[in-house]
């Protein structure tokens, strides 16, 4: 069976059709001509995205550190798990038991190697690539099969005599630095088992906001109060920088001697972790909540809507990937699918509550149909 009738090309191919020789991207008319026995159907995107969000939901039972990579793939960070192999097995079994589908899982110390592992034994595969086994797995792996190495790059690498992934990691670092660009150096490291790419979990992000509050000795002096607030802001920003985070929404509050709170919030046009930017942004709000003659006992700041400062770097990586994928017609759909998956994210729950709380996704409930029963 092949899906993609509505697009005129094969988007997903059953194992049986694969064995006949149908490949992704093959035009439907050609499939019908060459393989009349293959059943061609429309893609059912709603059903795909529902399966995807269920898959992500199930994997998140095991760890909140899940990156929804595409409509049928995710990365889960099991770094701090006691027995990652056992957990990976459990994830696989649970997915199969509850979704009735088979999943191929790859376990390794870097994303690039994990990708190789997950593709090693499809379908229903389970492959662990230990550090000491990396070379064995890379020996016969065509360089173009490595995640993120597109046709143009692999041609370039072949010109340098690099046919397999093992050929690449056997080159010394100096050679890679001299002859290749940054993304290839990153792949070179990842292929050796040195982690460069992090798992970008969007849900279960442990930090939702950064807060700093401090009480001060009773005063009505505006300058003192502002400098107290400024101090809190500086600390909070330092904290954000240490965690490689930027904030887009700033809350400030002043607490009066009579325990009343005066609050204000400011939304910035772009995220920041610079105290001066924050101070400039909140100055007017501070003026508006500060009451002349009132004594205050505490000030505080909350940096929220946090995002990673590395996201610009990720964009670069994404950009690189995208450029290399240019020749593949699935680019647009990949994006769309990624978005589909992401729409199902529930925001900002903390580690424990995201698992314990009965979360109700903010979207209609699609119950997948299994057809008819007698």
């Amino acid at each position, binding site marked *: 069976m092949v899906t993609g009738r509505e697009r005129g090309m094969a988007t997903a191919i059953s194992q049986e059709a694969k064995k006949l020789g149908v490949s992704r991207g093959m035009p439907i008319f050609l499939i019908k001509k060459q393989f009349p026995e293959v059943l061609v159907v429309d893609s059912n995107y709603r059903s795909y995205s529902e399966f995807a969000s269920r898959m992500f939901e199930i994997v998140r039972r095991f760890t909140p550190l899940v990156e929804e990579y595409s409509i049928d793939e995710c990365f889960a960070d099991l770094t701090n798990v006691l027995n990652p192999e056992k957990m990976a097995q459990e994830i696989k079994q649970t997915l199969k038991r509850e979704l*009735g589908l088979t999943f191929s899982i790859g376990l390794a110390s870097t994303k690039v190697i994990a990708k190789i592992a997950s593709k090693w034994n499809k379908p229903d595969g389970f492959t662990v690539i230990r550090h000491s086994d990396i070379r064995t797995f890379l020996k016969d792996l065509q360089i173009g099969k490595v995640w993120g190495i597109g046709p143009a790059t692999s041609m370039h690498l072949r010109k340098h005599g690099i046919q397999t992934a093992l050929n690449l990691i056997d080159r010394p670092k100096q050679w890679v630095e001299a002859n290749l660009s940054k993304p290839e150096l990153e792949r070179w490291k990842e292929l050796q088992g040195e982690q460069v790419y992090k798992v970008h979990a969007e849900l279960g992000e442990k930090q939702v906001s950064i807060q700093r509050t401090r009480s001060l000795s009773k005063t009505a002096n505006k300058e003192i109060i502002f400098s107290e607030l400024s101090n809190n802001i500086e600390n909070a920003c330092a904290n954000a920088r240490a965690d490689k985070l930027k904030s887009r929404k700033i809350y400030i509050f002043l607490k009066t001697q009579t325990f009343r709170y005066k609050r204000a919030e400011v939304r910035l046009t772009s995220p920041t972790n610079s105290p001066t930017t924050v101070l400039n942004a909140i100055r007017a709000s501070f003026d508006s909540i500060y009451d002349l003659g009132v004594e205050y006992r505490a000030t505080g700041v909350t940096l929220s809507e946090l995002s990673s400062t590395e996201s610009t770097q990720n964009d670069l990586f994404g950009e690189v990937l995208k450029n290399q994928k240019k020749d593949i017609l699935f680019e647009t759909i990949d994006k769309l699918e990624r978005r589909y998956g992401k729409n199902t994210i529930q925001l900002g729950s903390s580690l424990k509550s995201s698992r314990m709380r009965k979360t*109700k996704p903010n979207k209609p409930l699609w119950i997948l*149909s*299994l057809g*008819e*029963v*007698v």
Partner: protein
Amino acid sequence: MLNVDSEDTIDLEEYLIENRPATFSLLMKGNAMQDEGILDGDLVIVERGKTPKQRDIVVAEIDEEYQLKKMSSLKSNQKTTVVAVVVAIVRKYR
């Protein structure tokens, strides 16, 4: 029966579904299960991955077809796979 206690609203999703990602639906065809109160056209809500109890009604795969069966009526020597357990029936009257 309704687990709503003193509340005067009911969330159908919460009422019908326990394990969301493992829940699927099937359309009942025919009246083979009418003695169990399941009629032609009923929407059958099922959950995968649940261990069936003797008194459960289950979806069994028999001869490449999904069939509703009482778990207790399944013979152990029968070559069937239990696909899911029936957790709810939805019937529309109009």
